[in-house]
């Protein structure tokens, strides 16, 4: 298991390296002069040159990359062009709302997705299955921003039960997390259904039945644990989807998180913030996948004991 862990950790290094290069080059891909951008359109040529020196843009590219990485490691992500405040400060303020939103959404998605998936797999080709699977395919086809707006219209505008947006009380979490989690729940439901159905065809399931075990024990005891192994991996990948989805959902619900900051930054062309956000999202995603890999190891005895 330790070996497996170390192997995973080492496997991350090249990805981190490439990701850092990608993000470093990001600013360089912007058409036009980054120094001019930072200094502003009205700045004098002299000012622009000063900014260039300040940012180190006059230095050779590998030196720039090196200082870029060192700065990141020291927590220096630059200064926001819009607010003139350190990017780290901007981002850390916005981090927790997004974090909690994704955690809640994932919790919903896993609970409902699994439940629907398992019921569909065991009631194969019965009405429960058809209903569950039609719901799931609808779930992956729904535009989340539209679903959000419709929920607001119904529960906030018409019924007045829940707030339309913002993050004030636990009530504010309900609509955004359901909206964000719906798609992921649908994906989990579809995947866990097919995974469990494949497992239920395995020889050892027949062995379990031949032992005289109750069908529930066969499905939940012998089937589900095996079916979970691929489902866990897939759920990890869905975190990326959630992180992406949060960008849209936060806009719909005026959520004070990273996603809205990103959209605001894009329209303001606040590149240091965009750069930092991309880095943060990538890191988060890599981290989650590492956790998933570990979970995979825990579920799979062949990895756990070698």
């Amino acid at each position, binding site marked *: 298991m330790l*070996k497996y862990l*170390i*192997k995973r950790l*080492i496997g991350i290094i090249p990805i981190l390296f490439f990701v850092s290069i990608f993000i470093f080059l990001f600013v360089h891909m912007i058409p036009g002069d980054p120094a001019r951008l930072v200094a502003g359109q009205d700045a004098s040529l002299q000012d622009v040159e000063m900014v260039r020196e300040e940012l180190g843009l006059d230095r050779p590219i590998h030196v720039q990359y090196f200082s870029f990485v060192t700065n990141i490691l020291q927590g220096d992500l630059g200064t926001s062009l819009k607010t003139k405040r350190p990017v780290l400060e901007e981002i850390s303020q916005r981090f927790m709302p997004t974090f909690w939103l994704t955690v809640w959404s994932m919790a919903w998605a896993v609970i409902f997705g699994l439940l629907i998936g398992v019921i569909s797999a065991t009631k194969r080709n019965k009405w429960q299955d058809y209903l569950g699977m039609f719901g799931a395919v609808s779930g992956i086809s729904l535009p989340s921003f539209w679903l959000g707006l419709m929920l607001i219209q119904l529960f906030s505008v018409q019924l007045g039960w829940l707030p339309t947006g913002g993050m004030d009380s636990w009530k504010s979490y309900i609509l955004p997390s359901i909206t964000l989690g719906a798609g992921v729940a649908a994906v989990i439901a579809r995947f866990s259904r097919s995974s469990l159905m494949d497992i239920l065809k395995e020889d050892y399931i027949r062995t379990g039945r031949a032992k005289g075990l109750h069908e529930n024990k066969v499905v939940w005891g012998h089937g589900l644990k095996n079916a979970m192994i691929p489902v866990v991996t897939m759920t990890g990948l869905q975190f990326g989807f959630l992180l992406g989805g949060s960008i849209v959902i936060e806009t719909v619900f005026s959520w004070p998180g990273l996603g809205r900051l990103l959209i605001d930054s894009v329209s303001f062309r606040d590149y240091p913030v965009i750069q930092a956000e991309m880095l943060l999202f990538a890191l988060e995603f890599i981290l989650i996948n590492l956790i998933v890999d570990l979970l995979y190891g825990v579920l799979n005895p062949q990895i756990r004991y070698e």
Partner: protein
Amino acid sequence: MQMLAISEHGDCGGVKMEAPLLEVKNLKKYFSINKGLLGRKKKFVKAVDDVSFTIKKGETLGLVGESGCGKSTTGRMLMRLLDPTEGQIYFEGKEISNLNDNQIRSLRKDFQMVFQDPYASLNPRMKVREIVSEPMVIHGIPKEERMERVEKLLTVVGLSAYHADRYPHEFSGGQRQRIGIARALAVNPKLIIADEPVSALDVSIQSQILNLLKDLQEEFELTYLFIAHDLSVVEHISDRVGVMYLGKIVELADKQSLYQNPKHPYTKALLSAVPIPNPRLKRERIILKGDIPSPSNPPSGCTFHTRCPLATEECRNKIPQVKEINPGHYVSCHLF
């Protein structure tokens, strides 16, 4: 280490010595498995470990052994589907083990292979015509000739010409194996390597295919390397038989000597383990203890010593040499 079958059936005096069609010398295949992270302490699976034999024109050599003995790996190396780690392969006296991919390509006309699984060895998206003519396309035979030949080949293997426009999934296992054989015959090969060609088939179909292979051998003067795990099948089809265990040939002899008078304790045990369809026959059965060891961690000395009922101290420490105990009968065991 020599294991050249120069004489056979004791009539070496009268017949002049003919060069073998295929000669294999000290063939080895080690697969590396990476264990450890940065240390890279390399471990090897010794799939084939120092194997030598010859096949004469027109004969059938059977290679028999249990799973993991390296019989299929040997066949794949002869086809150059795998590159040997060490050792030489001579075909009609010419070394082919050192040729590169391009040089080997034209030689592949002379070597054809029949595979175990008749379901997997045919591309499900191709019609029988395309499948059978593919080797001819590769070796540049013109189209008119191909079309004519496909239909002839299908008749030769006991199918009909109109089967050419069907897809493989429309055929039964035995029929598919016939298609596979027709494909192997398409470019007039000299040597056919048959890797478990009947083990996936039902008994009644198995005998059809075995008979077909025998008929074709006569008709087209084919030479076979017949790889299988079923001792009865190998006995039926082969002229000479080699028994493999954990990457090595432990005994090689003509069929009569090997089956009537086996020398190696493993051969004896193997023969006595085969269930015989005769309920009155009560035999002394040698039941080997334990499992077949993994080729990634083979036992020291003679690899069979962990299961051998006659193992001595010497067997544990020393690798036995191949000895010719009777003309044409080779055994690798300390008892001899």
